[in-house]
């Protein structure tokens, strides 16, 4: 079978599934539509495995380095001979890796949802939206063109909006959907401006042409771009930072992270797919896609990204320690982990021995997708069993949910970076590349990984231990095979994904690299992780007063972390109080009084003029005759004056 064709099919199948389900969804049984969605997604997952195999082991290599392979491309909008918007499908290491992750997690979520969403009213539409999301996310990662990526980027935003607001009868879900949409849209404004600046400077929208033009030494495009500076950064840096702003919006980097915790209003499998494993890493992917430009031509922008990433990682991890809604804990954990990927990219450079950060970031993206999706699906199983998101309703569930318990534990170990689970390898790679390039960021990362272990095990102990085992000892999992299978499969990923020699497949320049791994170096992070786990055990393993006392002793810090450092309130203050009163109201006044006033004046002027002249059209014969005679007299007078 042809690889190109399979790659195209990977994209087309979810689209067909979406169209079919949304058009004919009313006519088929919900169970059938779930089955259709899942089968299609399993098929795409198999296809992408096939394509990945083909790319990595068959045709992807040229002279020992992986190169891009355009599976399919056509010119869609030709603006002039240089600038065009193409639609296409590119295979290179990161897009193939993303294809694999997306289709795999999506397939798991599809299967899982068959049970989790069972009996929902709009079950078919749910599957249609999932398929739409999968299609747009796949389209995003295989984009050949900045603008194509932007289109799919927005499509992803739309499907995320639809899925967050899936329970649209719940006001909080609507608010969350709106918030997610508006915040990401606001960020996308920066992305769009960045795209326009980049395409203006490089005179192209094609990724690979753009990268080549903006990285080659002595390139006239690059010279034109970097010659002007603003506030100490070159135009190119600004353009790339604006592009990054779009990525920060999607990837929930500080200060645009506020939508992600609220997005947990959506169904839990959706959170697993969109808000943990795939969509939120789109920002990381975007930076990775343009990494060459960042690293070579705008290292200052890259270091800004690194600091934003490091700060967000720490910030989100601290908040995660205080949240009581388990999905919110996971959401902040996601923000923190994505920030790990971001700063891993940020500390990387271009060239031999510099670019481990890139590989580490992609590696972490890969492993994170498995264990975070697993955590969310596990949390979904817990919520399904206890019908609550709050930690205080849980505890001692290890007998009631044995499979969930085990898989959740594996995922927690993975995210905490305990060897030999997946997270250990990717996090070690990130930390060691940070260690080599930026010590501050390394220490922030180190502490954050400790906090990560703490809050993950706080979550784990609060759910599965803490109280006595559930009295009934009833097993909630007996009939939920479609929820358990994805959990088991994903836990295999969480355990073994780290063993993949990632460096030989994915690197910034396509050449295989060896990820640094030193036993001595790993001792510190692992020790910190283990200590944090033990601390969590001491605090939350049994029901005790200790956590409450501890939080009371650092009340100020605890309270501010619990309230997410009041970021939401600051946003509300800025938007509602300042923007609304200072800009919105005057603008509304201007619109209503001046703009509308002018329109109304025109209208009423027209009306009054027509009112006053409509009397002429009175239907009175004599009036007409008078005008007629008057006109004739005037004409006669004119002629007399002229000729006499």
């Amino acid at each position, binding site marked *: 079978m042809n690889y190109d064709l399979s790659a195209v099919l990977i994209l087309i199948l979810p689209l067909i599934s979406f169209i079919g389900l949304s058009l004919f969804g009313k006519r088929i049984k919900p169970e059938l539509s779930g089955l259709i969605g899942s089968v299609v997604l399993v098929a795409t997952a198999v296809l992408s495995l096939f394509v990945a195999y083909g790319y990595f082991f068959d045709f992807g290599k040229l002279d020992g380095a992986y190169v891009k392979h355009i599976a399919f491309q056509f010119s869609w909008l030709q603006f002039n001979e240089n600038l065009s918007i193409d639609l296409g499908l590119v295979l290179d290491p990161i897009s193939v890796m993303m294809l694999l992750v997306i289709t795999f997690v999506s397939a798991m979520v599809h299967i899982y949802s068959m049970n989790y969403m069972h009996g929902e009213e709009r079950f078919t539409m749910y599957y249609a939206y999932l398929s739409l999301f999968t299609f747009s996310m796949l389209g995003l990662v295989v984009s050949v063109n900045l603008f194509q990526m932007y289109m799919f980027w927005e499509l992803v935003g739309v499907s995320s909006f639809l899925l967050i607001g899936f329970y649209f009868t719940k006001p909080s879900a609507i608010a969350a959907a709106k918030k997610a949409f508006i915040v990401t849209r606001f960020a996308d404004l920066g992305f769009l401006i960045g795209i326009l600046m980049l395409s203006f400077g490089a005179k192209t929208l094609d990724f690979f042409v753009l990268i080549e033009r903006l990285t080659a030494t002595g390139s006239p495009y690059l010279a034109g771009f970097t010659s002007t500076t603003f506030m100490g950064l070159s135009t190119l840096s600004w353009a790339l930072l604006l592009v990054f702003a779009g990525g920060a919006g999607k990837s929930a980097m500080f200060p645009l992270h506020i939508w992600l915790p609220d997005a947990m209003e959506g169904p839990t499998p959706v959170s697993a797919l969109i808000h943990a494993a795939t969509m939120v890493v789109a920002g990381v992917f975007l930076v990775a896609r343009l990494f060459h430009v960042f690293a070579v031509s705008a290292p200052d922008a890259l270091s800004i990204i690194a600091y934003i990433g490091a700060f967000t990682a720490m910030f989100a991890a601290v908040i995660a320690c205080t949240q009581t809604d388990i999905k919110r804990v996971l959401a902040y954990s996601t923000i923190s982990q994505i920030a790990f990927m971001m700063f891993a990219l940020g500390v990387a450079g271009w060239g031999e021995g510099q670019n481990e950060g890139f590989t580490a970031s992609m590696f972490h993206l890969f492993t994170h997708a498995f264990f975070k999706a697993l955590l969310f699906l596990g949390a979904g199983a817990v919520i399904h069993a206890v019908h609550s998101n709050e930690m205080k309703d849980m505890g001692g569930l290890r007998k009631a949910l044995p499979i969930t318990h085990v898989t959740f534990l594996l995922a927690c170990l993975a995210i905490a970076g305990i060897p030999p689970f997946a997270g250990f390898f990717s996090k070690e790679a990130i930390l060691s590349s940070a260690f080599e390039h930026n010590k501050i960021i390394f220490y922030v990362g180190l502490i954050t990984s400790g906090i990560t272990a703490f809050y993950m095990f706080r979550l784990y102990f609060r759910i599965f231990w803490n109280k006595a085992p559930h009295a009934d000892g009833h097993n909630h999992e007996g009939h939920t095979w479609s929820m358990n299978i994805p959990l088991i499969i994903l836990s295999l990923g969480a355990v073994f994904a780290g063993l993949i020699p990632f460096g030989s497949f994915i690197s910034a320049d396509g050449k295989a690299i060896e990820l640094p791994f030193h036993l001595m170096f790993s001792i510190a992070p692992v020790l910190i992780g283990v200590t944090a786990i033990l601390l969590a055990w001491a605090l939350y393993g049994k029901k005790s007063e200790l956590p409450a006392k501890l939080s009371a002793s650092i009340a100020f810090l605890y309270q501010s972390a619990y309230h997410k450092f009041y970021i939401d309130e600051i946003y509300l203050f800025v938007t509602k109080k300042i923007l609304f009163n200072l800009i919105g109201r005057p603008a509304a006044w201007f619109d209503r009084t001046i703009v509308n006033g002018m329109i109304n004046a025109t209208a009423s002027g027209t009306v009054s003029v027509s009112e006053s002249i409509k009397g002429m059209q009175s239907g009175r014969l*004599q009036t007409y005759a*008078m005008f007629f*005679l*008057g006109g004739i*007299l005037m004409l*006669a*007078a004119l002629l*007399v004056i002229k000729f*006499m």
Partner: protein
Amino acid sequence: MSVEAIIFYILAALIITFGVLTVFTRKIFRAAVFLLFSLIGIAGVYILMDMQFVAALQIVVYVGGIVVLIIFSIFLTHSSGERLAPQKLSRIIRAGILSAIGMLFSVWIITHHLFLPVTAPPIEHSVQNIGLQLLSYTSYGYVFPFEVVSVLLLAALVGSIVIAMKIKKQ
């Protein structure tokens, strides 16, 4: 001042008087009768100007036809002795001003324009001459307008019957 001139001025005064009465009277039947006298006066002016044929036509068509028709229609649409509704004052004033301006303007032009008669020898405006030229089809012959006017008359005849016909309701 010759007799003709005296007769003309008397006729003119009568024409204008009856015209004024036609326009100003509030009784419609009287208006028709005053119109009749005015038209007869005009016929007299024609006779004074040696246009016997036109004068005869004026008497036959206007006096004998049109005014009779008007009187018939008055009988059809009015009960006798009815006074006409007065017009709005503003309308009367406006009409008066407009007509006065127009009249003064025209009179001013007439009195300031010199009408020069041609010097060619005059011909007699006899019925014979009129008939010959009216039915002549050589140059300056009027047979074509004559025919057109006869068709127009026929059309008006048919048209007025059609318009005034009662439409039977089904």
